[in-house]
């Protein structure tokens, strides 16, 4: 009964909070609104890529290679953004590339978030030597150049999509671990946690029901930054040829293959590069806004 009461009293503020967020979207600047629309659009386009793409992204037409976008000389009917170095439709590859890049970024950053949060929670909650050991791991991860680690992993395990996603997932966990640990330490001795502890709750219950909800917002904010980081990381690894293997299109590998043609056919490299810029920017701006919105301290000042 008491439990029921608590849930009920929980629901009201939660609903209120959602309304507040919604309101703050309405209150936010035109830029943020624009970003939201853009993000929705990007996700929709990525999901609907097979329906939207005018051509098979891997279908070549070797005799019409290197055609420019619409409005230029030698434009080929039906290939709006032009064709690439093998005569593939650049627009279709951009759509599929976006889909792949977003997928890798979201899965990769979620892996990072889970690993980092778990380590951070254990580290902060248990403390002592475990804390020292885990934070030592974090220090190693930060000190170790990630590209080198990726190179090593590719050399040992080969270039495989699953491995690639795992590598991406291992890139950013240290940031989550640091932040989460700090948050946990900050609330570990808080009176309400002590109160729960006195009622006899075990560590799992304390963490799951009382700590996690309180540190969720920094994790979410960090994740939005993480996604844009991972998009850039995917791009740079694919650019270096360590990522997804041809002919699969990802934005990074498309930029990579386009670089040889920058002087002669710049659209091949610039189109995916611009796409990367837009996605990374959208995630960063939204992450920034989300931080401002979720940060209680900032709100009090206004």
């Amino acid at each position: 009964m008491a439990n029921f009461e608590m849930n009920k009293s929980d629901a009201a503020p939660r609903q209120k909070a959602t309304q507040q967020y919604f309101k703050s979207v309405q209150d936010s600047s035109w830029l943020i609104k624009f970003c939201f629309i853009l993000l929705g659009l990007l996700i929709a386009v990525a999901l609907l890529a097979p329906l939207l793409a005018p051509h098979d992204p891997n279908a070549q037409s070797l005799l019409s290679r290197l055609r420019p976008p619409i409005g230029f000389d030698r434009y080929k009917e039906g290939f709006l953004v032009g064709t690439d170095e093998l005569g593939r439709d650049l627009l279709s590859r951009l759509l599929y590339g976006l889909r792949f890049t977003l997928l890798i970024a979201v899965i990769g950053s979620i892996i990072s978030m889970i690993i980092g949060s778990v380590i951070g929670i254990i580290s902060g909650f248990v403390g002592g030597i475990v804390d020292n050991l885990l934070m030592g791991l974090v220090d190693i991860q930060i000190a170790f150049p990630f590209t080198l680690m990726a190179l090593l992993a590719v050399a040992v395990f080969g270039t495989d999509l699953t491995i690639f996603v795992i590598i991406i997932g291992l890139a950013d966990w240290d940031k989550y671990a640091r932040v989460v640990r700090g948050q946990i330490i900050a609330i570990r001795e808080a009176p309400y946690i002590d109160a729960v502890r006195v009622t006899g709750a075990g560590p799992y219950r304390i963490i799951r029901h009382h700590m996690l909800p309180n540190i969720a917002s920094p994790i979410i904010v960090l994740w939005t930054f993480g996604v844009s980081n991972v998009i850039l990381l995917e791009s740079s690894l694919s650019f270096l040829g360590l990522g997804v293997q041809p002919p699969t299109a990802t934005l990074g590998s498309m930029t990579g293959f386009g670089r040889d043609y920058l002087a002669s056919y710049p659209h091949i490299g610039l189109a995916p590069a611009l796409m990367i810029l837009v996605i990374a920017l959208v995630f960063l701006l939204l992450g920034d806004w989300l931080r401002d919105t979720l940060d209680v301290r900032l709100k009090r000042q206004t």
Partner: protein
Amino acid sequence: MTKLFATSVALALITGVASAQELNVATANLSAYIDPGADHSNVGSQFYVNAMEPLLFKDPTSEENIFQPGLATSWEITSPTEMVLTIRAGVKFHNGEDMTMEDVVWSLENMITPGYPARIERSKEFFGNIKGLEIIDDVTLKIMAEKPEPLFELIMAAQQGMILPKDYTMGLSGDPMATEESDFIAFRQAPVGTGPYKYSEFTPETRIIWERFDDYWGEKAPYQTVNVRRIPELAARITALVNNEVDLITNVPPDQLDVINSTPGFKTAGGVTPLFHLMYFGGGEKGSIITPELRKAMVLSVDRDLLNEALWGGQAVVPSTHTYPQYGAYYTPDIETFEYNLDEAKKIVAENDLEGTTLPFYTDPVYYTNGLLAAQAMQEMWREIGINIELKVVTSWNDPGTPGGWGSPDQIHNWSNPMYFADPHGSFGKMWAPSGAGMTRGLWDPSIGMDEWTKLYDAFRFETDIAARNAAYEVLMAEVKKDAPFLVLYQPYESWGMRADLDWSPFPGHIPYVLDFRAGYIGDEKNGISK
């Protein structure tokens, strides 16, 4: 006064020009080692001619086999199995030692019966028929072959027959009086030869600096210094050229020729290279998923003319069989070994239930010009007949023991067959003779059996009658067509980008990719060097 001024200006100009005799080169690939006797790669071939010399020279300006005195001043073929050479006097190695008969004999002996394992393949390919040497006097050397040898001069002019210093090499490690494997390993990083340039710095896969060798026996080198560095990225290489960081760059694909030619002050030079890009299929092992039927279907489904048209602007040469015009009387363009027949390919796939076969295809991103593009294009062509190719882009693709390395079964692989000398034995034979590199590495297991293949091959190799030899070659090509161990794609059209006032182009008489900067083979207005 004015006159004095003019003279001093002129003098300053002249000395200024003279002191700046330097050439900067950027290559796509650079050797990991320097040993002319072990090396046969397209990368290595670039870096020997300037600094090391064989007994005979082959006129680089002519496609035909015209031989010139090299470290031997004269030679005579005294019988079908014997050649007598007179060794040049007054030749010095870069370390200051005189070249003597001892060095010549030691160098050749280490090719005929090499103690150094890395040379065994080359030894079989080039010196397989050479039985021994006989010193007649201080300057006269007799070379003896086992069977009648129609290719004596070609073998003596090959990169693999370059003369190296005996005492220097033996002294590099261990016992200075003995030839040990470690001596050759040490030599690889500290090479010494007799050529007009000496290696003043060699950093594997990164940089080579050649300095003019002042004690050279012939015409001195035109440049004081030639700096070669590796820039694997095409875009970076072109940028380095147009920013005047380098004077000459290698491996410019046809797509990029306009970029360089339309930049004022720069030009390109190139030509069809005496080298075949090709595909080989699997490790040749029995029990591999790559059956002869599968190989045949894959060969039949590649539209090589389309590849040429699209990737090379039609400038590459698609051959009907493994043959080059340079062979002269032994050029056999009438034989049809490789054809494009999609219907036949589809039929073979259907009959043998090959649809859905998945194979990995290992390739380096930059080793072959247009290599990765061609790989992706062929991937689509094979998808057409229901064969799925998984591309694996790796830089270690040639190392044995790594995924995609030599002889790994159940994978396909790109490769090249250069023309090492203008005879079918110098290209097809170099790779696919019973002792050839492709066979040694187990890339083909002839269906008629190795003994029968050896018989057929020797019938061609040692035949001296032109018509009979060509007929014997046709028999070999019929086996290739039947077994389909590889597919010859094309002779690439390779180009080099350079300063417009540089007068240099690849030479038709050299093996592919040789960077020849010797006197008379390069002109450079800026440095006052005429060709």
